[in-house]
């Protein structure tokens, strides 16, 4: 038997950080290198790609973004190797996720259909339509390439969300992000990686919160405020018409009555959810979460963010909403009033 001595040149990171997303960084991945990488895409004469994937791929990976973050199971946060690796998040399941069984970012309802707003409930991978509200004269200029790239909208890069936006290739865009994360969820408000979004991620990506709808310490913490690299400012690099750039008021208006739904704006203190004396509930965190200046939850002022209403990857509802818009009924009798979603904040309209 021929003994093969492999010289390991890859240093395992000591102490798997597993999942805890500390601000501003996400958790660095941990576990065996060959869980994700293949040196030559060859073993016993066979390729080493994940099922359905075709290689070789950038960064010596066994799968694409969606390839790795897809499961055929129903657990959105699982250890795919059965105890030999770390749990990691899934954003698509061939068995299907649901609004009460997914992670904070939501889920793709179909990872292959590029038709625009496929069912209107997810960011459609592969679409070549410009993002809704895209404004090429706003903060980052005309940077988006998803409408001209053959691949269309993707996970990262200049035609996607994660990583830097000045390169096209997904892997190049997020390079270093899994092992040495420098921003919340590898998302940046800059074209390069110089300005990461602020936020704190809960270790289980809110899996427990979403499935139970309860709990007050099992949620992410989002950033908000005009001058922050906030989550809303991040969404606005694609959906610029839906968010006032710092120092401007054109898109949403200067104050109430707003022209478009405001984000990065303090919720009035006479609203139930805006009153800091009222403790937020699990339903609030799940259905209409708020943001804070510098993502500092103890800093006080609660603000509306894009994520107060939407989940980024997708949901079971139109427009990537956290809840069905059709259930938001104003003016109902006491005892049958809706108290989440729009009406979770707009309590005077219940």
């Amino acid at each position: 038997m021929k003994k093969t001595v492999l010289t390991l040149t890859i240093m395992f990171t000591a102490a798997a950080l597993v999942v805890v997303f500390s601000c501003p960084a996400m958790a660095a991945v941990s576990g065996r290198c060959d869980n994700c990488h293949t040196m030559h895409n060859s073993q016993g004469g066979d390729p080493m790609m994940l099922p359905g994937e075709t290689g070789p791929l950038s960064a010596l990976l066994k799968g694409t973004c969606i390839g790795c973050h897809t499961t055929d199971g129903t657990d959105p946060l699982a250890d795919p190797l059965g105890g030999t690796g770390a749990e990691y998040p899934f954003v698509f399941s061939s068995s299907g996720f649901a609004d009460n069984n997914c992670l904070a970012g939501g889920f793709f309802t179909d990872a292959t259909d590029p038709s625009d707003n496929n069912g209107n409930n997810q960011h459609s991978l592969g679409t070549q339509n410009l993002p809704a509200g895209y404004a090429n004269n706003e903060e980052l200029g005309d940077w988006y390439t998803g409408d001209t790239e053959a691949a269309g909208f993707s996970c990262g890069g200049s035609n996607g969300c994660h990583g830097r936006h000045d390169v096209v290739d997904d892997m190049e865009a997020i390079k270093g992000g899994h092992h040495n994360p420098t921003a919340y969820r590898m998302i940046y408000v800059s074209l390069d990686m110089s300005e990461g979004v602020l936020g704190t991620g809960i270790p289980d990506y809110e899996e427990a919160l979403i499935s139970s709808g309860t709990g007050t310490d099992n949620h992410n913490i989002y950033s908000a405020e005009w001058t922050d690299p906030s989550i809303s400012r991040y969404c606005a690099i694609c959906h610029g018409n839906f968010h006032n750039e710092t120092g401007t008021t054109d898109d949403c208006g200067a104050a109430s009555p707003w022209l478009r739904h405001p984000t990065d704006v303090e919720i009035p203190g006479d609203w139930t959810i805006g009153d800091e004396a009222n403790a937020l509930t699990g339903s609030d965190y799940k259905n209409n979460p708020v943001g804070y200046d510098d993502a500092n939850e103890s800093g006080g002022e609660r603000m509306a963010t894009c994520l107060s209403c939407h989940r980024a990857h997708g949901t079971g509802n139109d427009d990537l909403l956290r809840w069905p818009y059709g259930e938001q009924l104003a003016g109902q009798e006491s005892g049958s009033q809706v108290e989440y979603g729009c009406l979770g904040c707009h309590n005077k309209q219940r």
Partner: protein
Amino acid sequence: MKRMLLPISIPIFIAALLVVFSGLAAAKVSGRCDSCHTMHNSQGNSEMATGEFPPGDGPPHPTLLMNSCVGCHSNESSSTTFTLGGCVVPVVNYTGAGEPTEYLAGGNFYWVAQSGGDAKGHNVLGIAGADLELGQAPGNPNQCANSCHYSLATTDYNAPGCQGCHLKPAHHANDHANGVSGLVTSADQGWYRFLSGHMSGELDGVEGYEHGEWEKGHPNLANGQADNHNSYLGDEGDHENHAGFYNLGHTTTAFCCGCHGVFHKEKDTGSNWIRHPSDAVIPDSGEYAEYTVYDPLSPVGRPDLAAGWTPQAEVRPGTDMVMCLSCHRPHGSPYNDLLRWDYGLMIAGGGDLNRGCFACHTAKDTGG
């Protein structure tokens, strides 16, 4: 009793008093949020909102609305109400073919929107052009240039259009459920039909009992019913000076006087009536005492309209009052001067009509 024929000395009002918008607004809206609002004015990368609001300004609209006042409260199929996302919406501007045969308490802008229809309604921006004959509200006591006291039909003035009268719309005000009647007496409730004051009247507004269906069915509502009409507040005040909230309380007449206040100088120094009285108690004597069965075509003001009020099927001469709305519809009507009836049919001694002018002047129609 033989009724006496008295000479008619009622001046013709050229333009309707800004009477209570009894056919629009109020009652807490209900139903789907997206029936009226669009968060980003975008769906499939297409705009959702239409119309101009405020007039002259296209989408996106303030308060994230899908359309303007006129846009939402116009309809080409119904001249009374329609249902939108579970909410009943009053129609004040019928845009369908032919004249409407039914309308709400406040009337309908259909007629003023027609060519030559200036005298049949308030000329409101988005519905009708500026009045060709009137350069300002008739009886205007407030010489505020470039204001809604001069016209509701241009973009030159502050708060043009509908908000010249409905100053502070509060569709979500917690007054009473959509489709249900209720008393409205405060700013928190949005005031009666969103009618309120500004400047010196900033804290004032109209109080009244709102019929849940805006008196749907005019002009054919039955007499003597308690449940088919609004109830209006009345306050006698004096009749020798201009008027407003400051001396007529939270009445519809006070509101009308904001633009037509000169018409409230109704008595001369000898206490003779020189203009038709408004917010004046219907005498409990002579022909006036005959008006006892409530006619929705000739509403009255109730001085005792307050908490606990229940609608009445009777008129109480000696207590209830004639007011602006007794004769006029604020949005518009088929008749000149926004009257509730055809003035040309008001013929003294012409027969036992008992309606219109003759609802109160009960002896004049038969020549008694």
